[in-house]
């Protein structure tokens, strides 16, 4: 991990009222705030559902998980739905270890 991959967030709108955020790179201590800022901006625009595509994330640390929880809380405040539509097996394991699979809606 000498060369860190920066986090990239891409916003896509598929259907009215729904926004898809595609994350790639590292979601960690250095980049966690970027995700929260991006999600706040999207949710502030009054969408009814936010979908997260996490399949492009190489690495997520505890700060990254904290950022995802923050996004979840922001979505709840805005009464918007939050779904994780894609993720890697490493992330699924991480969600299971932290029992976050109980609160996040994960794809089958």
């Amino acid at each position, binding site marked *: 991990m000498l060369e860190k991959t920066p986090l990239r967030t891409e916003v896509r709108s598929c259907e009215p009222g729904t926004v898809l955020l595609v994350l790639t790179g590292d979601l960690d201590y250095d980049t966690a705030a970027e995700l929260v800022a991006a999600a706040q901006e999207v949710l502030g625009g009054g969408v009814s559902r936010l979908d997260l595509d996490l399949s492009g994330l190489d690495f997520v640390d505890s*700060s990254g*998980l904290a950022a995802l929880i923050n996004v979840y809380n922001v979505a709840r405040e805005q009464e918007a739905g939050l779904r994780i539509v894609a993720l890697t097996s490493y992330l699924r394991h991480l969600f299971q270890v932290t029992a*976050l699979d109980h609160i996040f809606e994960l794809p089958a």
Partner: protein
Amino acid sequence: MTTARSAGQGTRSGGGEAPAGLHGEVRGGSHGGLRAGLCDDPPDGFQDDAARVPDEALLRAVVDACGEGVVLCDAGQVVARNAAAARMLPAARPGTAAASAGEALSDPGHPEGESREVAVAGRRLLVRRESFGTRHRAWYLRDVTAEHARTEALLAERRRTGFLLEAGRRLASSLNPRRCARAAVELACPFLADAAMVVLPPAARRQAPWLRSVPGRPVMQEGVIGPAEVAQVPGLTEALAGFPPVPSRWLDPAQVPEWLLPEGFGVAAHLLVTPLPGNGVPAGALVLARGAGGEPFDEETETLVRVFASRAGAAISAAALYQEQGETNAILTGGLLPPRLPQPAGAELAGSLRAAQQTSLVGGDFYDVCLPGGEAAGGEAGGEALLVLGDVCGKGARAAVLAGQVRQSLRALLLLERRPGRLVALLNRCLLASAVPNSFVTLVLGSLAAAAGGGVRLELVVAGHPPPLVLRADGTVEEVASRGSMLGAMREVVLEPVTVELAPAEVCLFYSDGITEAFGGPSGREMYGGARLKTALAGCAGMPASAVVERLEQLSTEWLAGRVQDDRALLAVRAKGVR
């Protein structure tokens, strides 16, 4: 002359311009003769040599117009001099002995044709002697007073620059206020003054510490002075209060108290007191004294001292701030450092904590062990010891503070609740109520009790953390089958308390994800992973707990090969054999 002419002919250039140039330089000379004798371009190159000899008046005019002084002596008597020589060396009048003009016209032993520099009545002269025949000597004088002054100014400027560079280098080399003050004193004396003293701002009981040096004595003198003594030194009270410095001539050296100067210094002839400006607050004052016979502090020196004082002040002030913060840090981190592990009944414990930010020594990983009835009871009273290893969100000091809060909260909650599952749920509610944003924590918490038939029983709760590993007596390694929510995120937590029995010599290992998610290895990009950790732990069968932790920590460090990115924590519990 012949050579010059043939050269001129050879190049065939500027023949028409040369006379005009010479005309301009000669004042009061015989133009006709000059033209005839020196400058007419010979039309054919066969002009008669006799026509070229200039008359005496012309020669005199040429010599008089020369910027260089010329004094001609005949057997030690001055016989002629030009206007420039009369200006530079008025004493060398024709008819007087050359020696009476002093050093300028007397240089026994100095080689002919070589210049030497002589100081005459406030001028600097460059003097050269040439002999003509056995009797005549000519002295050539050049006034280099202005050049000399410029050179001297340049050298002085260079010395000042060099001094400031050296000052910058030495002052920056320490983060200890006393050593900075000492460097300032050593720099100031003897370059700036015969005696130098730095007085630091008054500290405890309004006593101001001071340092003093005397040239020729290696030992630095130190002491403290009270407000009464400070008031005795002209300008010192003001300087210590940070008022701008006053010129040295305004300070009366006669008022200098005896104690200010080193023993045997005599009276101070000149005094300069300069404040050391710090970061917002004065960092002290610099007292400089020159003894009897010393030059007064001129304006340039006073400017230099002010520049020097600002550097010294900044260094001392930064060092004082650093020391203060260091002391505060030591107090704060003292409570955040890993605890000394007590040894509960029936088990031996060992832990290791490596912060990613080595300089801070603290990080977001933590472990703690609480014995029943507190440390004083020594754990021998029976009951259950509580073990916890966790990881708070974030890095560095901020994470360390949260980790400290979690440890403290657990100790407080432990007074009310000892069942691991309920304890962790309570901790979750504490974290949700915390004012610190992102108070997310993952941890493993276990309550340890000696089992009836030897060995120990661990009741474990895993909250969003990698589950512990168990090293069995036969060398196999199992992962504890339990998981649960990370804490501080949700109001409701899901936990699956589980009980693990350890037979004598079996080990249960708590670890943080900094161990398994360490990127390194041969490629530098490979994750250490749970499988490698299990294999490494299997290789530790039969080792005491401290050796297990040491071995795993060493393997992890080797894997990282210096590329430390995350805090790493290990805590091992080993069941003791039956005695």
